[in-house]
């Protein structure tokens, strides 16, 4: 396990925990018991405090593959918004738009031709700590 302590742009501490055997990265904002967690995408899990909307950790399954550039740039991943309970939809969207999650994920949408609605997408940003972290592999 590789652990790197760093600081967010807000000045708050953050810890990166990378498991090279499983290629799993967990970004820990605060280590405590979560009261909710959801699958943001098939490979990204968010744990948070339900009462305060405080993100506690963000996990990336297959991290090195997730950040590997594709032919046309950074890969985008479909948000599993349809699978979030109705009463969490607004709360999760608000968290994604705010620090610290917006330092790591950028949210967008894709509107296929003749589609009835947009497909929500997420792309993994490359914060300063990532290159240092990846280069240690």
């Amino acid at each position, binding site marked *: *396990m590789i652990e790197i302590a760093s600081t967010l742009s807000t000045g708050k501490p953050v810890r990166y*925990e990378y*498991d090279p*055997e*499983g*290629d*799993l990265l*967990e970004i*820990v904002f605060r*280590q*405590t*018991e*979560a*009261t*909710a*967690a*959801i*699958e943001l995408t*098939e*490979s990204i*899990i968010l*744990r948070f405090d*339900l009462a305060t909307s405080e993100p506690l*950790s963000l*996990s990336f*399954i*297959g991290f090195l*593959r*997730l950040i590997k550039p594709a032919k046309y740039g950074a*890969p985008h991943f479909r948000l599993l918004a*349809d*699978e*979030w*309970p*109705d009463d*969490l939809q607004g709360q999760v969207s608000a968290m994604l738009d705010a620090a610290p999650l917006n330092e790591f994920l950028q949210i967008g949408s894709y509107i296929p031709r003749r589609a009835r609605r947009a497909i929500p997408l997420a792309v993994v940003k490359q914060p300063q700590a990532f290159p240092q972290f990846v280069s240690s592999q």
Partner: protein
Amino acid sequence: MRRWTVQDREEREIYLTEERWEHIVTGHPELREHLDDVLLTVRQGHRQQQPHDPQAYVYRKPCSSLRPPFNSILVVVAFRLQTDSDGRWQPNNFVITAWGIVMRRHERSG
């Protein structure tokens, strides 16, 4: 160091080491009392290959004993190969981590 070995629905042998379990519950303390539920998720859960890592699979299963609103467990399993003492390739499938999660529907959990 202890380890627990189970078979999934298609009889693939998968193990969880005590070291990994301790790491799981240190990082995700909401699962501390749910070792049996995590192992049951591997035994009976719906298995889905990770879209970007063909050697990683997610197992999902509803779990009613978690504190609401958690209603399911998700386990990530690595499927690897290793050579035995005779140089033959053998499966080396192990739990990477697990989460309690909140899902709208249970259909995906199998």
